[in-house]
């Protein structure tokens, strides 16, 4: 596992394991066999048509007043300026960021504790690990529908039985609390992936470190805080940023739980953008998508630089 961390897989810009021969050593570079182009080109061409072209088209239309069909004309930065004073857009960003931060914290704390538990000396370790990963493989929309039923029926029933007033009505119908349900269900699905990464991290810590700490009389809690946590710090960075990037795209689970409601209290950026297609807001929501893309890129770059620093530090 530790080997995986140090292998420059290319994201960090590291060269492959084959040393690239310098031009001085080999003046006549070997010709590339044509078949290699045949291997590569279908992928690159399809990728360009399916992702790059739509992306560029979208950015282009963000500077127009297009409604998706018919005539359009350039309007410059009008859409971008309008976005910042649009309460619906601003609210969707605030909700999405707030929800993402809350979910990242919940997911990482729970996943880390589970990973520590699942790498300790317990019975039925394999069976438990298998169970904990199950949520990761179920469709988000169906998970959301199942929890929708539990939040709308079972939880209020339990609330009135226990005499907890704020639980007696559905959380999903409460504009101030619906996000709690969304965080809980998103976390339910996102914990397994994060947990597996922490398990990998914990397994890469050599056991003699703990033996030495035992000999020095360190308690279990001290070992966890002074040895385990610092040694898996790199995995925390990975998990926080991977998770954050994923939660920013939140769509399926929110659609299934609240569909953005009550009102627009739980509308994510992804939902706002996609709603633009029916609302005739095509150009306007493309401006929104462009900004969203820039945000996603900035977060990814932050991820790369943090991971690189982490690699240097370790």
């Amino acid at each position, binding site marked *: 596992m530790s080997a995986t961390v140090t292998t420059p897989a290319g994201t960090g810009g590291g060269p492959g394991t084959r040393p690239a021969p310098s031009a001085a050593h080999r003046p006549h570079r070997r010709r590339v066999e044509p078949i290699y182009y045949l291997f590569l080109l279908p992928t690159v061409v399809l990728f360009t048509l399916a992702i790059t072209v739509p*992306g560029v088209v979208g950015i282009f239309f963000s500077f127009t007043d297009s409604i998706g069909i018919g005539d359009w004309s350039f309007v410059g930065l009008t859409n971008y300026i309008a976005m910042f004073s649009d309460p619906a857009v601003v609210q969707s960003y605030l909700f999405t960021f707030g929800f993402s931060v809350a979910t990242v914290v919940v997911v990482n704390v729970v996943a880390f504790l589970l990973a520590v538990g699942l790498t300790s000396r317990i019975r039925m370790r394999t069976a438990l690990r298998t169970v904990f990963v199950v949520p990761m493989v179920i469709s988000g929309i169906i998970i959301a529908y199942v929890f929708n*039923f539990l939040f709308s029926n079972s939880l209020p029933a339990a609330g009135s039985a226990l005499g907890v007033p704020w639980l007696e009505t559905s959380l999903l119908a409460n504009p101030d609390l619906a996000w709690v349900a969304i965080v809980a269900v998103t976390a339910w699905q996102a914990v397994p992936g994060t947990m597996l990464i922490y398990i990998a991290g914990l397994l890469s810590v050599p056991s003699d470190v703990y033996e030495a700490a035992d000999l020095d009389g360190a308690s279990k809690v001290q070992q966890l805080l002074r040895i385990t946590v610092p040694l898996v710090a790199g995995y925390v960075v990975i998990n926080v940023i991977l998770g954050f990037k994923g939660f920013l795209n939140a769509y399926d689970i929110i659609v299934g739980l609240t569909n953005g409601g009550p009102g627009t209290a739980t509308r994510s950026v992804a939902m706002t953008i996609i709603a633009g297609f029916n609302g005739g807001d095509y150009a306007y929501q493309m401006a929104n998508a462009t900004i969203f893309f820039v945000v996603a890129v900035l977060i990814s770059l932050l991820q790369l630089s943090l991971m690189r620093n982490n690699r240097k530090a370790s």
Partner: protein
Amino acid sequence: MATQTLAAGGRTPTTGTTPGGRPARGDRAARVSWSGTVVLALCAVTVLLPLYVTVSMAFKTQSQAVDGQAFSLPAPFSIDGFVQAWNLTDFPVGAGISLFVTAGTVAATILLAAFASYAIVRNWDRRLFRYSFYYLLAAMFIPFPVVALPQIQLTGRVGLDNPVGVVLLATMFQLSFSVLLFTAFLRSIPDELEESARLDGATTWQTFWRLIFPLLAPMSATVGIFAFLYAWNDFMMPSLIIADPALQTLPVRQNLFQTQFSNNYHVAFASYLMAMAPAILAYLFTQRWVMAGVTQGAVKG
């Protein structure tokens, strides 16, 4: 690598001294943390409870399903929910389309990603191939909602607003992750293997099919299972790209119960169960690759 480590199930227990430096009791079973086991088993209930509710609701009769007792066992046991769900969602058609989308995505992802990765790794000293790698990887930066609207338009215009279009787009969105895994794996295969094949007169095409592709099998399994889970479970993309409701995939068909049959809980849950079961079964048989894929993909991504 990760597969073996995970399958082996953790740190090898140390022998000699117990924590705290006390003399070892010698009996390994005595050091099993029973409290830890109990706590984790209780945590596992939070995972299993929603699944239990799904199964038990699915086997209830309508009158028992609407009484709101989600956790009670079905009595009498009824498969009426499944029969109705089968008809309401046009299950055979929905499952067929989901299967088509999933199989297409898995096959296309493995083939295209393996081809491209092989070309990239073997020609890494060439700018075209190196930059192509970064280009494909850049898709990790792009959230689907960002390109969704233009994609809906373009697929509509070229007649791909159907399951075939979903296969194409899903494959493209799986490429980054898959190429990342394949290239890393290919770099660990020594050149000497290929050179000996070439000395025997094999062309590059033959070398790929006879030597490289079989060697890639474990990684193809990982890439394939992730493409499977993504394509089988996704809601957002098919719901937006497929224009004809009759051609929708299983997850999208479930919204029927939110909009039209909101009180037929037993039918809804039977339908959810039928839609989620294949993914859970696939996972139970391939967990090794799921676990390896998460860790390798994340640590490299």
